[in-house]
Structure formats: structure tokens, C-alpha cells
């Protein structure tokens, strides 16, 4: 197993989670940092967690898809207690009347409990596993990408570079352009929202603030926010079922 953190802010933002993966503080698997979201551009990763299976010959046998080590985990109580009340980006989609709500959308789609069993089946049975896809199936099941989406990725790369260089206004322009061109890429969106959310709120869980603080909506530089986007989506669409 190889893990990669899609976070542009530098190693310290990911350190405590990486070190928590092993009692010694040093994971025994390659635990990597992907500050420029190479996994998105190279493989078509669009959300976290996304999982990719690669065989002994270096052939992808399942393209990026939602996957977990087990059932749904709850957020720590202190994290939820630390979260400020959030508003909505002025341009965000309104939450549908009688819609499923954010938590129902987040908890739907790919079956979390059976995912590790699928990996075990592949480990034990190799190419005979029913979960292995042919190269043609892998390509067809990889994320859609047209020229506009390539343009969105290019805007993200510029935004990422400009933010790290301290040119935040220019970065936000490119993030917004990216989000318009790749509206279904959640890592491109959440990365940007969390940078500003963390700036505004800080603390241990500031990166999980991905929308404007209530009362500060006009000061939110993005065209949407996490809660508004997820709650406007259909059940099963945030983590699509692929097994």
C-alpha cells in the first residue's frame, strides 16, 4: 500500500495523520506527500479517498475509485465542537427543498464495508479476481476528461504555484477558473476551500472549514462551498459505487 496526501501547504499539515498510522510514528508503508495533486493529473483522482490498483507488471487493474479500509467512521467529537457555524457562498446552489442533505449524500454510494474484501480477493486470486478489469475497461472507467478539463487542471497547477508563492489573489482567480471547468473534481475544490477556511478559523481542525463562517459570507472568495455543493448532489453521486 502507498498513501499520498493531496495537500499543498507543506508536510506539517499532514504530519500528525501520517504519524498516527503506526504506534512508532513511522508508517511501514510509503506514506507520501502530493502537494501538486499529481494523482489527479496522472491517474484521474477526483476525490479523497480514491484508491488505484496496480498489478505486478505495472498495469492499472482498477482506476481511481472511492474506497475505505472498513465501515463509516465518525468525526471526533472535539472536531465537531470546534467547527464554527458556517454560512453559504453567495453564488452557491441552494439546498434542494426536501433534499437528502449533506450527510446522507456523503454516506451513500460505494459500499465501505466490502471494499477491503475486494482488495483481499485480488491479492489472493490475482488476474482471476472478478474485480480485475482489462486495460480497455480501465481506460473506459477512468474519469471523463476533455480539453476543458485539461484546462481546469492547468488552472489548478497555476493556482497551487501562486498560492505557495504568496500571490493569493491571483491563486484564487485560477482556483475559481479551475472549479468552473472541473466541477466534479472534489480535491481541486476542497483543497482551495480548506486553504481559506483554515486561514479564517485556524486551530486543529481549520482545514475542515470549507465554507464561509456565518455572517462573513460576502468575504468568501469562492463561487461555492462544500456543504452547498454536496447537499445539492444526488444520493450516490459523491462517492459513486463502482464495485
Amino acid at each position, binding site marked *: 500500500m*502507498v*498513501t499520498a496526501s493531496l*495537500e499543498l501547504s507543506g508536510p506539517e*499539515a*499532514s*504530519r500528525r*495523520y501520517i504519524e498516527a498510522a503506526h504506534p512508532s510514528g513511522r508508517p511501514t508503508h*510509503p*506514506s*507520501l*506527500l*502530493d502537494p501538486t495533486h499529481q494523482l489527479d*493529473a*496522472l*491517474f484521474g483522482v477526483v*476525490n479523497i*479517498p*480514491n*484508491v*488505484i*490498483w*496496480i*498489478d*505486478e*507488471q*505495472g*498495469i*492499472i*487493474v482498477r*482506476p481511481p475509485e472511492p*474506497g475505505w479500509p472498513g465501515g463509516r467512521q465518525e468525526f471526533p467529537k472535539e472536531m465537531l465542537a470546534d467547527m464554527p457555524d458556517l454560512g453559504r457562498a453567495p453564488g452557491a446552489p441552494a439546498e434542494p427543498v426536501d433534499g437528502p442533505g449533506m450527510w446522507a449524500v456523503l454516506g451513500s454510494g460505494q459500499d465501505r464495508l466490502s471494499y477491503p474484501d475486494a482488495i483481499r480477493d485480488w*491479492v489472493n486470486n490475482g488476474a482471476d479476481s472478478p474485480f480485475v478489469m482489462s*486495460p480497455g475497461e*480501465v*481506460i473506459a472507467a*477512468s*474519469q*471523463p*476528461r*476533455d*480539453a*476543458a*478539463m*485539461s*484546462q481546469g*487542471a*492547468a*488552472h489548478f*497547477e*497555476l493556482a497551487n*504555484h*501562486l498560492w505557495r508563492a504568496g500571490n493569493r489573489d*491571483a491563486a484564487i482567480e*485560477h482556483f475559481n477558473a479551475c472549479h468552473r471547468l472541473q466541477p466534479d473534481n472534489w*480535491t481541486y475544490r*476542497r*483543497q482551495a476551500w*480548506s486553504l481559506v477556511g483554515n486561514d479564517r478559523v485556524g486551530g486543529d481542525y481549520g*482545514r475542515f472549514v*470549507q465554507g464561509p463562517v456565518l455572517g462573513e459570507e460576502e468575504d468568501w472568495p469562492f463561487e461555492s462551498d462544500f456543504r452547498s455543493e454536496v447537499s445539492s448532489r444526488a444520493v450516490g453521486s459523491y462517492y459513486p459505487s463502482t464495485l
Partner: protein
Amino acid sequence: MLTDTLELTAEQFAAGTGWEIKPQGACKAEVCVPLDGSAADFNVRAVAERLGMAIVTDATTAMSAIGPESLGDRALATAQAPELVLKDLDGNEFRLSSLHGQKVVIVSWAPY
């Protein structure tokens, strides 16, 4: 790939995108896209257009980004895993190709 010039050589383009310019065209794993002209005539705009790669330039810094290929309207043009080079917390470089011969599961996550 990020670049401060679009006067790139074929070698620089290959290093940044994984697409090598060969006699038969622009190639990645088993996929080759025919090009007009030879590697000596390499023109990044023409090759990027052929591969469906967008080029975006930031007006204030003149930095450009070349987006990933969009052949066949899919993120993957081939099932051959691309090389992935990333660092760990200690700055040690990891190459995906170092695990050739083993099954690999890559898991993306983020602290947000």
C-alpha cells in the same frame, strides 16, 4: 507541467508530461499519437493541441501550466501506470516503479 517558458525542447516536454517524442509520434507506454514534423521541429503548442493538453498562462507572472492529455475524453490514455515520483515527510524520494513486481494499492487522502 509548470513552466516559465513555452520554448521547450522535446526532452523537457517528456520530463514534464511523460509523453516522449519519437519517430512515430508522441508516445506514452504503448500509445503513440502521430505528429507532423520531427522531434527537431518540436513545437509545444502544436504537440499539446494534438494531445488535447490545454496551455494556460498567468497574465501577471507569465508562468504557464500545460494540462494533462485528454485523449479519448478519458483521464487514462493507457492502463500502463505512469511513473509517480513523490516525497515522504523526511524528504525521501519515492518512485512508483520501485514497486514493480508487487501488487500496489495507492490511496489518496488529505488533511481536510
